[in-house]
């Protein structure tokens, strides 16, 4: 019984820490939406390094992956993991290409609902078009360092596995600085973007895998 009480207390403390109360509701959401829409229009390409930390809450364990990410309008995306091993995912229009060691797999985006959903979320989070999505309820928060969008899934099929997506922007709203994906099991993944390069020239070969 004491163990149970301690566990509940621990969960409450963890939750209150995780909730990050420092974010207050944004006063002028119209202005923030305009800023996000503006970067969405102005961003033709984006390149950055990323660190992805998966936290398995019940196991108190973290799994860290690192890599490089490229995005090019319209609908070209490359996630290149370099650690813990090399693994590349390229989304080229309606094709998904995966390179794992020497194996190359090709999928048709429309034939795989899961890929399509992941792709839509990822790309719309990066280019800011998520604001137009009807699949999420969006909450807007801010603190002295930047803004946070809280996306709550509304559609069946997504609600069962995804609890929230948090998108973080710097104060100047130049691009997404961090993504946080919280699953219904309370496991969560944080992707930090660093060394960002906006509207640089990305060679077309980056979105082709052979």
């Amino acid at each position: 019984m004491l163990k149970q009480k301690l566990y509940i207390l621990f969960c409450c403390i963890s939750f209150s820490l995780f909730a990050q109360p420092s974010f207050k509701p944004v006063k002028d959401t119209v202005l923030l939406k305009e800023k996000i829409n503006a970067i969405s229009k102005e961003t033709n390409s984006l390149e950055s390094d990323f660190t992805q930390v998966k936290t398995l809450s019940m196991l108190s364990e973290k799994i860290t992956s690192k890599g490089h990410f490229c995005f090019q309008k319209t609908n070209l995306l490359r996630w290149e993991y370099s650690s813990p091993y090399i693994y590349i995912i390229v989304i080229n229009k309606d094709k998904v290409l995966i390179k794992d060691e020497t194996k190359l797999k090709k999928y048709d985006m429309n034939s795989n609902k899961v890929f399509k959903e992941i792709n839509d979320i990822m790309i719309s989070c990066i280019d800011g078009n998520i604001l137009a999505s009807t699949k999420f309820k969006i909450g807007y928060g801010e603190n002295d360092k930047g803004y946070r969008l809280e996306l709550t899934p509304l559609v069946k099929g997504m609600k069962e596995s995804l609890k929230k997506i948090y998108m973080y922007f710097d104060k100047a709203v130049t691009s997404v600085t961090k993504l946080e994906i919280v699953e219904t099991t309370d496991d969560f993944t944080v992707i930090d973007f660093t060394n960002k390069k906006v509207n640089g020239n990305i060679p077309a070969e980056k979105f082709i895998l052979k």
Partner: protein
Amino acid sequence: MATFRLKNLYLSSLLILLTGCAIPVKYKLAEQRKITTTDVQPLVSDSVSMLYKMQIFLFNKYYTGLLLHKQTDSVTSHLVFVTELGMKMFDIEVKKDSLKMVYCFGPMNKPKITNLLENDMGSILLHQLINKTGKIYVNKKQENTLYTAKEGGKKYIYYTQANSNRIAKSLVKGKLFTTQKTVYKFGADNLPESVSLKHKGLLRLKIKLNRIITGKTND
């Protein structure tokens, strides 16, 4: 001519059937008793979290990601499979005598798949052998041991490495044929570096695990 061919086919089938079910002649039965962790080295550590690159080939589908094993208390551990993008695919709770799927990602959450994963993970972790009553066979020439145990109408056969209590290979036999083969390779730290499990017959399933040493997990 046709009758001769048919006879040959019958004879060869019978031979395969007989040899397929038998323990190799070079192994002599030594005793029958409960197999413990002194006889066979467990494949997971109670104190260290282990991370593997996992590849699953199921018919024409291919899944990859990271498999984490972590002990959560003295009798429980978990096997969690997470894709490269960070999506959790399954979480299996491992107790001393059982494995239970506590989470499985929507499209995979079907009894046939979850049962298969529980069985295969149990088989990899030697659940059908350790703490079970089995037969012990010894091969003096190669100085290795062979263990057999039965569970759910299947016979599990485990071969150790020479002069070691580490498992090198295991076979699962159904009523007639071998249905599954697993091969283990160990690293310098005495923990498995790679594990390869392959189903034979109609079920085209292969699981490969390769340990990730550099990408250590941390709290």
